[in-house]
């Protein structure tokens, strides 16, 4: 053991839930540290804030649908978090973005009505709070859509996207342009960085403008800048003289990388620490409490002590949960009890890809206050929570934000109460 560090709270995981919880804790005055094996879900997800997209039909009014969902599924994360906690979390996030390091960049929308935005394959995705750079894509607007792509962008196929938009009853067509890149395979982040450059945008717009028709709006893959997406987007709209919107596609996600930078910056500004490449490999417990966690970094272990821990390690996708070849499912970080695991002899998965998979709702067992079962000072947030199928419901970011926000409030309240009685 090379070091012993003490914090007011330690957050494990640097996805949406972990960064939200940590930033909120730091803003509340807690000395907080985030330990993460690597960057989290932000770099994979489109980072529209999907609160509730399907229930199971397409949701138009998330606020109303949330109330129905928690009534029908008291085991759902939203039922534990509380529907009332969702809107403040979204507001907090939106101001984080607005006050963040990307000048002018903001998220628009809320719980009243879902946006309905084209996916890269041309389906219409419902989402509550979205980057301003995507909002003009709402398929319910009447302007015809020109979906713009380039052969060099293998992760975006405008003709297929347009064909499905058309099939869904929207006027759309594809436009292929040439991107001035010197190779056949373009890297999403590399292209996004080029769009931060005004000359590159100018050449792009000059090529595209003459091919657009009157009244068309323009959909492009979500690559419009990393450093200054607001500037890139407004500049492109100005040059083309029409609305432009981003369409998210395969990872890595440029909008997600923007959000990671925004939250990291907010965390630092509030005095919190983020240590990437620091995998939690063990925990010391005392009775029903975790007293410290051991993290492995750069060849040595450090022990982090804290009165509170937030487990935001995600589900199976991020490795927070794992099913081993002996068919035992576990929380890989703290080994906490799980909920929703199919019993012995019951199927874990079923043959129909789109059917509900029995393993889909597994998560770390918690009480109504998001406290882990068997560890009273561990709060659980994000995809590690049981009871939801976020990729299926369109609820991932909503659950992550709201539970991260809520977990931080719980810690701050408890710490405040502790301080008051002390």
């Amino acid at each position, binding site marked *: 053991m090379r070091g012993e560090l003490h914090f007011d709270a330690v957050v494990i995981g640097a996805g949406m839930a972990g960064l939200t919880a940590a930033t909120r804790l730091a803003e509340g005055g807690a000395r907080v540290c985030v330990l993460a094996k690597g960057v989290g879900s932000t770099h994979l997800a489109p980072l529209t804030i999907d609160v509730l997209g399907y229930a199971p039909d397409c949701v138009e009014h998330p606020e109303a649908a949330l109330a129905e969902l928690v009534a029908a599924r008291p085991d759902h994360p939203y039922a534990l978090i509380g529907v009332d906690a969702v809107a403040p979390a979204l507001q907090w996030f939106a101001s984080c973005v607005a006050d963040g390091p990307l000048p002018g960049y903001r998220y628009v929308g809320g719980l009243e009505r879902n946006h309905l935005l084209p996916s890269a394959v041309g389906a219409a995705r419902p989402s509550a709070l979205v980057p301003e750079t995507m909002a003009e894509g709402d398929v319910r607007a009447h302007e015809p859509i020109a979906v713009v792509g380039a052969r060099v962008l293998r992760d975006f196929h405008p003709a297929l996207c347009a064909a499905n938009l058309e*099939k869904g009853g929207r006027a759309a067509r594809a436009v292929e342009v040439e991107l001035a890149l010197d190779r056949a*395979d373009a890297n999403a982040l590399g292209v996004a960085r080029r769009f931060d450059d005004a000359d590159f945008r100018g050449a792009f717009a000059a090529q595209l403008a003459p091919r657009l028709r009157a009244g068309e709006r323009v959909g492009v893959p979500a690559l419009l800048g990393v450093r200054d997406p607001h500037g890139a987007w407004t500049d492109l709209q100005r040059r083309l003289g029409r609305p432009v919107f981003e369409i998210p596609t395969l990872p890595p996600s440029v909008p997600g990388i923007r959000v990671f930078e925004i939250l990291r910056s907010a965390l630092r500004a509030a005095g919190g620490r983020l240590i990437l490449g620091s995998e939690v490999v063990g925990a010391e417990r005392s009775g029903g409490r975790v007293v410290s966690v051991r993290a492995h970094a750069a060849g040595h272990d450090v022990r982090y002590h804290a009165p509170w821990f937030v487990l935001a390690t995600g589900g199976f996708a991020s490795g927070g949960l794992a*099913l081993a070849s002996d068919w035992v499912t576990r929380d890989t970080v703290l080994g906490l009890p799980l909920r929703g695991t199919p019993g012995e002899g019951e199927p874990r*998965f079923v*043959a129909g890809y789109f059917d509900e998979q029995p393993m889909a709702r597994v998560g770390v067992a918690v009480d109504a206050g998001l406290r882990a079962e068997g560890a009273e000072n561990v709060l659980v947030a994000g995809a590690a929570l049981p009871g939801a199928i976020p990729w299926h419901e369109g609820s991932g970011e909503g659950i992550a934000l709201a539970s991260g926000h809520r977990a931080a409030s719980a810690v701050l309240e408890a710490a405040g109460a502790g301080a008051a009685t002390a």
Partner: protein
Amino acid sequence: VTTLTTDVLVIGGGATGSGVAWDAALRGFDVVLVDRLDLAEGTSGRFHGLLHSGGRYAVKDPHAAEECIAENVILRRVAADCIEDTGGFFVTTQFDDPEYADRFAAGCEATGVPCEEIPAAEALREEPRLNPRISRAFRVPDANIDAWKTVWSMARGAQERGARVLPYHAVVGIHRDGDEVTGARLRDARTGEETDVQARVTVNASGAWAEHIADMAGIEGVRVLPGRGIMIAMNHRLVNTVVNRCQMPTDGDIIVPIRTVSVIGTTDVHTDDPDDHTVHQDEVDAMLEDGERLVPGFKQARALRVWTGVRPLFEDAKASDTDTRDVTRAHALLDHSQRDGVGRFVTITGGKLTTFRLMAEETMDLVCRQLGETRPCTTSTEPLPGSESGEHYTLGERLERKEERLREDQLICECEMVSRDRLEETMRRHATTNLDDIRRQLRLGMGPCQGGFCIYRATGILHGIDGLSAEEANGALLGFLQERWKGTWPILYGDQLRQARLDDWIFQGVLDVGHLPR
């Protein structure tokens, strides 16, 4: 109903049927080759990929061993580009009867299977992940063979000589004229259109489905007992040499390195339905345990996929004292004019992939006898298209090609290094809207991500090339997604579950393919 006229109608586009078509075309016959699905979608495409040296049969079935080594030598020459010369080991582990090794060595000697005993330490030096407790090791000329490439090379070679190759054409009736079979009625599985084929001879090479075709021809007693076996592909080449347990052949005793993966096989469970591909949990567990015996840590490696194949085990319900069929032979060639008094109809079934060429040769020799013609077989000397140079393929081939054109070419399937140029060329040539057909050509989507990244890309490209409607493109995408899921869900654990969940996020989250317009 259109009518085709041909010399030889071959029913069944597996290795045997394609081999018969290739053999017949080389002998100058006009050929029609049909399959109800894609070529090599049945048993031939569902094995572990082992080109036997014969070692496996050296004790149990010496005749089969002799056939295997003879064919192994021939195929290395004529199908060189379909084969990777991995070599093979037979190793005695602590779980094996130590007495068997001497019998094995004697069996190889007697059957002519080249076999060299090497120190266990040498085997371990070459294959460091192998069970360190092996006591003996033998080197044999096992290899791997890419069945899809082999079958399509033969089909193309036959096509170049005028053959018509009709995948997705199911036989819906066999035409009989008195005591003779005169051809068959086909139905195009994609369009529903029907075609009559009039043939001088009809060859039933439908393997595990041979009973069904024989029934249609009104022939009794052709009984094929389908024996189902499971195989599991592990990510990476856990070994680079084929590794066999040195014991009497049983379940889960071979690991075959092929392309980017290692395949462990197999089991043998009787099933009534050759289309039954159910994977049972206990079979998976047993196979993983077997893997652990050969390569410790096997279960911790990433299991990519599980599948089943169905062996055609022939049993002649009409067998009598006068039946001259050698009972030890793995394959069965039925001359229905002698057996049943039905002319111009031949059934070939049973056998193993390694001996497909021999089966085809014997079949066409019989066909020639029935037709009263003498045209010699040349498949043992004529290389398949693509194999003319006599060089075997190597694992690094695709990477080498990519490196040559690093900046000019786009990788669509990174796992299997499928480039956009090759994908587009194959889509144009193959004229299919089924991405699974493309997979069998190029291994698209067969790597660790199981299509997570390439399915969307490939669908977009297919849509552009073939001018598909959105509906057809969506069908291709959803069909392939389900097809990939089919082989992963029974074995999802560890990192492959992690990958599957990431793929869920991509398809159901980012792309929202569950809500494409209908």
